[in-house]
């Protein structure tokens, strides 16, 4: 049996070696995708172009405007457009926020009366609008504190763990690593098996005395190895180029990624038993991958999804692996903390292979 499995691995190796497309997929894809995605994906709120209507035009109001521009969240500038037409600014998207300072701003503050500042936001991007409003509130209160020269005694003291610099890239890149692994392993496995079916070589193997476990292992081992290579490249890139911290244990990450790879290989196999042409295989794989990515917590937090959709994510192996990768890399999470995720992946791997085994009969009915 071992000899047969080795022969299968050697065969796979020969084929992959000569398959330009796959080679490019494994080596170039991680680099290209990571580069583009890591830089493009950003849900930070920055560069909120603010049109300032300062009807007070005194020292205090100007100071307030200055305080708004700290940190580059808001980019305030005096607006050339009169107030009546200010909404046109928002409409065309030239500006995201109109800030309106009333003419009794300084006076009111000097007389210790509360003053109200108008803040009109473009709600088209709901996320940015609410965060921008939140920031504005914060700035306003801090401004008040500074003015009264005393801070209220009861304050919030926050401690930010695992990423005090607040780099959003640290959250995204481990996600990309996980996503790449998913895409490559599922696609390669499904395509490889379907290609054999199309060419008739699968039938040739069915007619031989090869045991089914050998057939399955003969596919798992080479593709798991490929997945590992891809994973390592992506990881190396993440750590070396994007400087993602790696606080946890390497062996644990590799061990658990093997478990994850088994699930995606299982899915690839399952897909191959359900499709007859390479195109269908590609399609199903594509479908699976898109949904896996969207519902994994990669860039959309699962908590944000409607209840029903959240429940669906429990059926997505990538969801668990996403938690594992991020947990190990950024938080140094150990087996203890990741108990549930590991269990889920084990259940998945076992079910996928059971299904595939059942469908992979050598003799058709």
């Amino acid at each position, binding site marked *: 049996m071992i*000899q*047969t499995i*080795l*022969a*299968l691995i*050697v*065969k796979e190796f*020969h*084929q992959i070696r*000569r*398959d330009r497309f796959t080679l490019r997929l494994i080596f170039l894809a991680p680099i290209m995708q990571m580069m583009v995605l890591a830089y493009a994906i950003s849900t930070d709120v920055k560069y909120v172009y603010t049109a300032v209507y300062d009807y007070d035009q005194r020292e205090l109001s100007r100071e307030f405007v200055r305080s708004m521009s700290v940190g580059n969240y808001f980019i305030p500038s005096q607006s050339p457009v009169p107030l009546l037409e200010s909404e046109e600014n928002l409409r065309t998207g030239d500006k995201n926020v109109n800030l309106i300072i009333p003419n009794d701003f300084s006076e009111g503050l000097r007389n210790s009366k509360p003053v109200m500042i108008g803040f009109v936001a473009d709600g088209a991007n709901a996320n940015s609008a609410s965060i921008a409003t939140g920031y504005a509130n914060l700035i306003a209160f801090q401004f008040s504190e500074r003015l009264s020269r005393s801070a209220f005694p009861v304050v919030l003291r926050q401690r930010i763990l695992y990423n005090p610099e607040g780099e959003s890239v640290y959250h995204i890149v481990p996600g990309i690593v996980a996503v790449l692994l998913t895409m490559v392993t599922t696609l390669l496995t499904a395509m490889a098996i379907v290609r054999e079916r199309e*060419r*008739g*070589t699968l*039938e*040739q*193997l*069915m*007619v*031989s*005395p*090869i045991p089914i476990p050998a057939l399955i292992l003969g596919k798992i081992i080479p593709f798991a190895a490929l997945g590992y290579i891809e994973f390592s490249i992506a990881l190396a890139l993440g750590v070396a180029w994007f400087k993602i911290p790696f606080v946890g244990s390497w062996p644990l990450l590799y061990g658990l990624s093997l478990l994850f790879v088994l699930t995606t290989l299982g899915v690839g196999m399952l897909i191959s038993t359900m499709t007859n042409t390479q195109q269908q295989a590609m399609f199903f794989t594509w479908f699976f991958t898109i949904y896996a990515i969207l519902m994994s917590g990669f860039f959309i937090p699962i908590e944000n999804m409607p209840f029903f959709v959240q429940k669906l994510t429990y059926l997505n192996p990538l969801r668990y692996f996403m938690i594992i990768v991020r947990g190990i890399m950024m938080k140094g999470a150990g087996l203890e903390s990741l108990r549930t995720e590991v269990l889920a992946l084990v259940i998945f791997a076992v079910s996928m292979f059971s299904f595939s085994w059942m469908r992979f009969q*050598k*003799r*058709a*009915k």
Partner: protein
Amino acid sequence: MGHVVSIDNLTKDFGKFRAVDHVTLDIEQGEIFGFLGANGAGKTTTIRMLCGLLLPTSGTGTVNGFDIRKENEAIKRSIGYMSQKFSLYTDMTGRENLVFYGSVYRLGRSALKDRIAELEAHLKLSRFIDRLTGSIPVGWRQRIALAAALLHRPRILFLDEPTAGVDPVFRRRFWDILYGLADEGTTLFVTTHYMDEAEYCRRISVMHDGRIIEIGEPQALIRKYNQTDLQETFIHLITHFDRT
């Protein structure tokens, strides 16, 4: 029974469609048996049942003494199969293909090496054996596929249209090789559309709509139906039975 292949009332239904209808057949060792029939007559389905690729709906049979229903894995160790597609890995060389299939049939390293050398010489594969099978002429691909089927010295060889798309010179040489194999005691079960090849067989059967409508020696059948050659005999038989 000393028959290499023996089937009794073998039937296969796909839903309401009866692809193979109570086929009964006995094949002796060393025989070259031609399995003829029009497209869609049920030839490939029958072969697949004999090779253990498909479960029969009813009927019984043995191949090399093994029951085709219960011992199909045992059958696979002693048969060779060559499909219409010459199932070779087109992105591997001939030699790599042979090494692979040899290992699948559990040939040891050195035994395999010797066997490949033997087949290479016998089938004159040297020129193309180290080229990618996808880029060699069809006739040579056919030879390498045959070699792959012979690695484990099977007692019976199932060949499903092995000469489809191959030029006449290669076809004739191929049959020379097949004769050699039969002389050595290998039984050959061949389907083909080429009537000139069918005349090489010791016995032939004609299949139509899932049933065997005639079986016997080619020359005897030609005389029986008063035709000039096997092709005319075949056409006569088919049209006669095509009452629908």
